[in-house]
């Protein structure tokens, strides 16, 4: 089972990459009130049960994938 991990910088953390992209978009006439940039990780886990897969993905996130000081994460089971 594949689990997607969406990692984003916390709202209170200055996201310099997101801001640079936002500035370029604004510069080209795209009106928007924010742009935040993170990363997406796809874990292909040897699990068949959804709850087991999510539990293992959580364990992996806590181990290394995100830094709780500066980032948040969300999980989704992928088809």
């Amino acid at each position, binding site marked *: 089972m594949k689990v997607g991990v969406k990692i984003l910088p916390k709202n209170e953390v200055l996201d310099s990459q997101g801001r640079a992209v936002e500035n370029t978009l604004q510069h080209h006439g795209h009106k928007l009130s924010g742009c935040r940039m993170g990363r997406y990780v796809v874990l292909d886990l040897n699990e068949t049960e959804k709850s087991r897969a999510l539990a293992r993905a959580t364990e992996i996130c806590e181990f290394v994938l995100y830094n709780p*000081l500066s980032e948040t994460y969300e999980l989704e089971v992928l088809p």
Partner: protein
Amino acid sequence: MKPVGVVRFLGTNCDQDVFDAVAAVGLKPKWLWYQDQFDRRDLAAVILPGGFSYGDYLRSGALAARAPVMKSILDAANHGTPVLGICNGFQILCEAHLLPGVLLKNDSLRFRDGWVKLRRVGEASAFCNVKESVHLPIAHGDGRYYVEEDQVKQLFDDGRVWWRYEQNPNGSLDSIAGVLNDKKNIAGLMPHPERAMFSYMGGTDGRDFFTSLAL
């Protein structure tokens, strides 16, 4: 004289400079390979040099912080061995939770290099056997020191802020350039003292950072 361990991860690139800096002040450097373990009783101190361990993949320092050698470093640190992380070494120590905070992408989004003036804040530590104001080179893309707002005051109160930039080059919170752990035997520093060892390098303020490891 026990040697000073110099750790090499894949992608470390200031390793030879640090090795030579340790030798230049009359200490004995010893390589530590990232996949190996060591006995803490064999070493006087450990230095994690700068570079781009694991190509800065995921987050700078995150993967190196989980490498086998870190188990021995944790053991040594817990037993009071001085551990100094420089640049990427600082990032690794933060990611290993041996130092508070995290180093984020510079606010300018640019890799910053050049010489900076620093002012020492911390006092009560072997690492503070350095004059109060130094001139050192920086070279980093992820140097913006960040901790949660309520933690910053605590770090200052506890004397754990080690160095501050006179002019903030990267957006670091309160211009923090270096911090210490609560026992003051682990230190992280963003600038590169190993690049300021001889006058031909442009300055010699880096020497004290290595001599202070001998105490």
